[in-house]
C-alpha cells in the first residue's frame, strides 16, 4: 500500500482557518458542513501553559475502522493507497462508519450519503497537493508519500518530534503533527 501522509507543523500554524475555506471551495462542501476544522489546544498549569493549533480532518488511517465497518463496501481505498473514499452510489447512510470513526471525521451530505475528506485525491492524481495544503499561508502543512524516504513528509517526521491523534485506537492515522 502506498501511504500518503499529511504533516502539520503546530509551531507554524496560526489558526487562520484558510485550510477550512480552501477545502470548502475546492470540494464544494455545502454550507453548514465541514470536512476539516481547526482546534486550539491549551495544556499545562498556569503560568506554564502551552498552546498549539491543529488543522484536523480524516486521518486516512492505514487500519481504518470505518472501512471495516461499512456493510456495503461503499467505503474503499483509492487505487492501492491509504486514501479512504466513499462511493455515494453504494452508501445507504446506515451510519456504521460514523459510529466506527474515532475522530468523528465523517459527515452526512444533504442527499443522505456519507462524505469525508478525500485528501483531494483529484488533485493528488495530477501531482498537486490537497487544497488545504496548497493554500496554507504559513506553509505549515505538507503532503507526500511516506514510503519515499526523500519526501518532505518523511524527512520532517525523521527529524522533528511529532504525534498523531489517538494512536491508541490502533487505526494508524496518517495525519501527523510536529510539536
Amino acid at each position: 500500500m502506498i501511504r500518503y501522509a499529511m504533516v502539520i507543523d503546530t509551531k507554524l500554524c496560526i489558526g487562520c482557518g484558510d485550510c477550512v475555506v480552501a477545502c470548502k471551495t475546492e470540494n464544494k462542501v455545502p454550507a453548514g458542513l465541514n470536512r476539516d476544522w481547526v482546534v486550539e489546544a491549551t495544556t499545562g498549569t498556569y503560568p506554564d501553559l502551552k498552546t498549539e493549533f491543529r488543522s484536523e480532518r480524516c486521518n486516512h488511517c492505514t487500519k481504518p475502522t470505518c472501512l471495516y465497518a461499512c456493510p456495503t463496501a461503499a467505503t474503499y481505498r483509492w487505487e492501492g493507497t491509504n486514501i479512504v473514499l466513499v462511493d455515494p452510489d453504494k452508501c445507504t447512510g446506515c451510519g456504521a462508519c460514523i459510529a466506527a470513526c474515532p475522530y468523528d471525521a465523517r459527515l452526512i451530505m444533504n442527499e443522505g450519503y456519507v462524505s469525508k475528506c478525500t485528501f483531494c485525491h483529484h488533485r493528488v492524481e495530477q501531482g498537486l497537493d490537497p487544497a488545504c495544503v496548497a493554500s496554507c499561508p504559513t506553509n505549515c502543512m505538507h503532503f507526500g508519500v511516506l514510503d519515499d524516504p526523500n519526501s518532505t513528509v518523511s524527512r520532517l517526521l525523521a527529524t522533528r518530534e511529532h504525534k498523531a491523534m489517538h494512536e491508541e485506537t490502533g487505526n494508524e492515522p496518517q495525519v501527523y503533527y510536529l510539536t
Partner: protein
Amino acid sequence: MREEILITVRDNYKIDPTVSVWGWQVIADLFLVGLTAGALIFAALVILRGKEETFDFTAKRLPLIGLISIGLAMTFLFLKLTHKIVFWRFFGAFVPTAVMSWGAWLLQLVILAILLLTLQGLRKGYPSLASPVEKFGIGRWALNWAERIKRPVAWASVVLGVIIAFYTGTLMTSMDARPFSSSGLMAPLFLVSGLATAAAVVLIGSRNAEERRLFTGTLFGLLAFKVLLLALTLANLANGSQQQIESLHPIFGGDYTQLFWLFFVIPGLLVPLVIEAFGLRGKRPAWMIISPVLVLYGAYMLRQLFVDLGQVSGYIDYVNTYNPALLDLLGMH
C-alpha cells in the same frame, strides 16, 4: 489543564456536538430483533421437546408475534437509512469485517425461520388466519410443508436465535470508537435481554397455568442473569481503557444518572425481578401483569441507553463555541 477549543466552525449534522446518528429507529430495531430471537428460541425449544400441546402459546402463537416484530424491525431500519434509494446495496456485497453486513444476510435466514415456525402453528394458534390461507392450494401446501419440517426448522431456529441476538450486541461492541458500548459482554447481555422480552410476551399472552408457571421461573432466572451481566458490563468498562472509564461518568453523577438508575435499572430490572420472585410461590394474580410490561420497557431502555451513551462517549471532546444563532444574526444584517 487540557482544553481543546474549535476555532473554526464544526457543526456537521448528527455528528456535532456529539454523534447522534443512531436514533429511535435503530433502538426499536435492536429491541424487536431481540424479541424475535427470543421467540425463535422458545418456540423451537418447545417443539423440540414435543411439548406443543402443553405450551401452546409459545409453540403456536408466539412465532407470529416474532414475525411481526422482525417485519417492523426491518421497516424501522429502512426508515433510519439516510440514503434509502440504494438500500439494496446491503445485498450487493458481503463484507466479512462489517458486523452489519453479517446482520443483513443473517436476518434473511431469521425471517425465513420465523415464517416457517409461524406457518407450522397457524392452524391451531390462529385458526381464523389459517382458514383464508387454506382456501388456496399453495397456502395449504405451505402449511402442510411447514408442519412436516418443523423439527429441522426448530433446530435451525435455536441456532439462528442465539446468533441474531448475539449480533445485536456485537453490532454495538464492534464500534470501538464508542467506548461505552464496546464491552465484550454486550452480546450475552442482549441475548439474555431478548429472551426475557419473549418470556414477558408469553406471560402477557398465555392463559395456560402450566405455561405461565414455567415462564415465571424462566423470566425470574433471566432477569437475575441480566442484572448480573449488566453489573459485569459496568465493571468491565470500569476496568477498561481511559475512554471506557470516562464513558461511565454520565451514569455515575453525570447527565444520564437519573435516567439510568431511576428510569431503567429500578423499574426495568429490579422491580420485575422482585415481582417475579413473588410469582415463584406458584400464584400469578392479575396485578402481576405489570411485571412483564416493565420487562419490555426495561429491554427497550437498555438499548436506548447503550445506543445513546455509546454515541455520547468517544475520543473527541472539543469545546464547540460555534453558535448557530450567529448565522441568523448575520442574516438580519
